[in-house]
């Protein structure tokens, strides 16, 4: 599993395109972070860039077939990819924070008046932890889709499902069909739950319904991914 995680890190950080894209996003994310805000959606984009084709591209290139020809459990491969993905994401979050702190110090030195107060380290840690936990769920969703969809289909499926849940709710409201709107809401809340991490990480409503939804969704996607992946046949040249 550890080797699979290392392999993922080598693949992602060794690719110039991904490296530059992540670097740029880290720089852009540093600006709102320095201003006392969260990642403003860039964390989600970064996770999608990292997770795109995490299993499917290995299958398409034939690398997966090579790996599975050795005595390694499929679950170990899957767990390794997931761990690598989270490690890459953690590097992105860490880089953004380091850049935000550096930016804050540069601004403090250049500004003529009294230096603005620095954002507390605990605040940075909380924002990062919130982004990491929400990213872990997104990674599990992409991993699940990646076990049976081809190419970039995994990221596309995440986007399509997000739009579908949102539009169901809007459609239900527009057509005055509460049942449709409720179905959209239920689907979004349970299949792609959002947790108020800021409050939870400060010890408020830790065992609230959003946390329950999050843990169940995370394990559900993971179990489904493991079951589907363990039953799939990967033949050379299928893609």
């Amino acid at each position: 599993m550890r080797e699979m995680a290392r392999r993922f890190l080598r693949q992602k950080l060794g690719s110039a395109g991904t490296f530059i894209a992540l670097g740029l996003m880290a720089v852009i994310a540093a600006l709102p972070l320095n201003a006392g805000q969260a990642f403003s959606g860039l964390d989600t984009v970064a996770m999608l860039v990292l997770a795109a084709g995490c299993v499917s591209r290995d299958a398409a290139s034939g690398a997966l077939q090579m790996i599975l020809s050795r005595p390694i459990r499929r679950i170990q491969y899957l767990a390794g990819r997931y761990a690598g993905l989270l490690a890459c994401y953690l590097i992105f979050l860490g880089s953004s924070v380091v850049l935000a702190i550096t930016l804050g110090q540069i601004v403090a030195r250049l500004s003529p008046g009294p230096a603005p107060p620095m954002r507390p380290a605990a605040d940075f840690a909380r924002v990062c932890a919130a982004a990491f936990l929400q990213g872990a769920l997104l990674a599990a969703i992409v991993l699940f889709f990646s076990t049976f969809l081809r190419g970039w289909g995994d990221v596309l499926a995440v986007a399509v499902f997000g739009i579908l849940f949102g539009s169901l709710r809007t459609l239900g409201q527009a057509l005055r069909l509460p049942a449709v709107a409720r179905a959209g809401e239920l689907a979004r809340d349970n299949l792609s739950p959002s947790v108020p991490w800021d409050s939870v990480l400060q010890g408020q409503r830790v065992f609230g319904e959003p946390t329950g939804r999050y843990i169940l969704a995370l394990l559900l996607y993971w179990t489904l991914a493991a079951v589907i992946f363990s039953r799939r046949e990967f033949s050379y040249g299928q893609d």
Partner: protein
Amino acid sequence: MDRIEESAVSPPGPSVAAIPTRVQGSQSRVPRLLFWLLAAAFLFRIETAILDREGKDSGEGLVHWQPGTAAPSAAARFHRPVLYDFTAAWCVPCHLLDSEGWADAGIAAIVNGSFVPARVVDRSREDGSNPVWIAELQRRYSVSAFPTLIVADSSGREIARMEGYSSREKLARFLAEAKNKAGN
């Protein structure tokens, strides 16, 4: 694909070189632990839903919410203004107000000690329309956004208003000003 022997295939390239050479049992087997964890998560999900529902039914957090319809008579009895919290289930800032503002012991003490707090939950999105008393209150106080906090005397006259929620400090300031205006 169930059991692969050490000598099966030797893959080229350095990236897979460190893969272990022996595996016990089926390669495709999904660990049972995963299913147990999923079952535990399912139970936890049910438990949190029940706890949340109980919490909502008995009044969220530390604030002692009164039924909206009974609030004006309670205000007249205790000589305190009513604090209406116009909220909605889908409103994200409203949840922040719940978890951050109303969950603050200091703010809850001010609210419980100086106002008759009443929560008015909008259901128009979910049910298509609101109960008559909610629609009437929203019309009277021209509520067009959530959360909206209205402080009114027992006759229903508006004393203070705050739309939206940004921070605990701003909420505390609003409550202090409203308390002063009401003459408490």
